[in-house]
């Protein structure tokens, strides 16, 4: 079974980085959002430095949302989702593997790109390190929560906007603790470790709830 799941992981990864897969778009979108920020608020370097962590987190959240509607929909359109549902593997595990592949293809590049974006926003070294670390710990939660929305809207045409409406309220805690940890690392009195650990916990909880809810939604959508 683990070989089948590994094969699924490889397949999803390969599909999403190929042309039309949409994974490279995420990083590009991330870059565009970060670039637009100084245009909208002015090239005030101290201000950019202060709001930099928040800008990076928001941009990462939006970039994560961007590719979510393809997570199950592409498989649904060509019929391979039916095969995955009926293949006999626990659907929860299949959803988890698909989610992890999606995270590796779309969110991991964001984490890698984050330090360079931090330089554009005039952030200090410790802030850049903290943002990269929190994004690494927090983006799995965003992907796994978003997976629920993707599974709920899989059979709908034009489900993309609906995913954003359904998922964004649920991703508020991740955003709060992610930015909170970075601010804790930069401004001295607040701690870094406790919000960071909450962030890790959110990702772990999302790793349990996300696959279960997504599998239930996929089964509900089949019938």
């Amino acid at each position, binding site marked *: 079974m683990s070989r089948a799941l590994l094969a699924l992981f490889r397949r999803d990864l390969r599909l999403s980085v190929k042309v039309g897969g949409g994974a490279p778009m995420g990083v590009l979108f991330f870059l565009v959002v970060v670039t637009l920020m100084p245009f909208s608020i002015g090239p005030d370097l101290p201000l950019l430095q202060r709001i930099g962590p928040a800008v990076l987190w928001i941009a990462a959240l939006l970039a994560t949302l961007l590719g979510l509607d393809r997570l199950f929909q592409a498989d649904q359109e060509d019929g391979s989702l039916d095969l995955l549902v009926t293949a006999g593997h626990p659907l929860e595990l299949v959803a988890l593997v698909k989610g992890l592949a999606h995270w590796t293809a779309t969110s991991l590049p964001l984490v890698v790109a984050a330090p360079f974006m931090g330089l554009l926003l005039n952030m200090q070294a410790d802030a850049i390190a903290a943002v990269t670390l929190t994004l690494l710990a927090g983006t799995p939660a965003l992907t796994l929560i978003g997976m*629920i929305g993707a599974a*709920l*809207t899989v059979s*709908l045409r034009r*489900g993309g906007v*609906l995913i954003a*409406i*359904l998922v*964004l*309220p*649920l991703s*508020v*805690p991740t955003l709060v603790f992610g930015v909170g940890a970075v601010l804790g690392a930069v401004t001295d009195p607040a701690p870094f470790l406790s919000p960071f650990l909450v962030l890790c916990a959110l990702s772990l909880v999302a790793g349990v*709830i996300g696959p279960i*809810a997504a599998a*239930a*939604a996929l089964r*509900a*959508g089949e*019938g």
Partner: protein
Amino acid sequence: MANVSAPSQSTLQSLANPTRFVSLADRLLPWLAALTVALMAAGLYLGFFVAPADYQQGETVRIMFVHVPAAWVGMFVYVVMASAALGSLVWKHPLADVTARAAAPVGAVFTLICLVTGSLWGRPMWGAWWVWDARLTSMLVLLLMYLGLIALWHTIEDPIRAGRVAAILILVGVINIPIIKFSVDWWYTLHQPASVFRFDGPTIHISMLIPLLLMGAAFMSLVAVMILMSMKNEILRRRIRAISIRAAYEGRKERA
């Protein structure tokens, strides 16, 4: 629904028959409506004419008698929806879908009332229409979740499938409810901490507590009336849908 006429059935199962449910609701509704009017009249009279003005906030404190019950009800309706969602996913109870769907707009409206009255109260007290403190923000998130659920129901045409899909999202979103309830205790912000439902008893004076609880009961009963009426509408809407689908099907058969 094949065994609804079996002699040994629980009340919950007998309610699965929509016709029986509608006739029960019809019998209950006048009493509930009368109860709502009585409680509302008593609560409003005590709140607006008998209860003293606050020594700090003056007369503006009276908005509390609408604001606080609306907040309770806004969260309570979500809990009702969550139990209905459990009912529709675990026991496939036919009325659970209807309950959740009928409750969502009611909950959204009361959450909005809570936000608007809070904003009107906040302006003279805090000097701002809106502050981004933990409770206000989590209440706004609750409103967004209600609106997202309503949007989901509107997008999926088949009511049975829409009900199952929405039930999953309701259960995932229920995590937010304790966050709202305890937000004032976890984060010490502008909004005042809990003063009625506390482990060491209410800290609010009895002259304000009685009208507040009366208004809470009145809002609960009002919500029950609204949800029951909305459930009746939903049942009729589904019946019309079934009839029109059958009519279309019969018409096609005749032409063929």
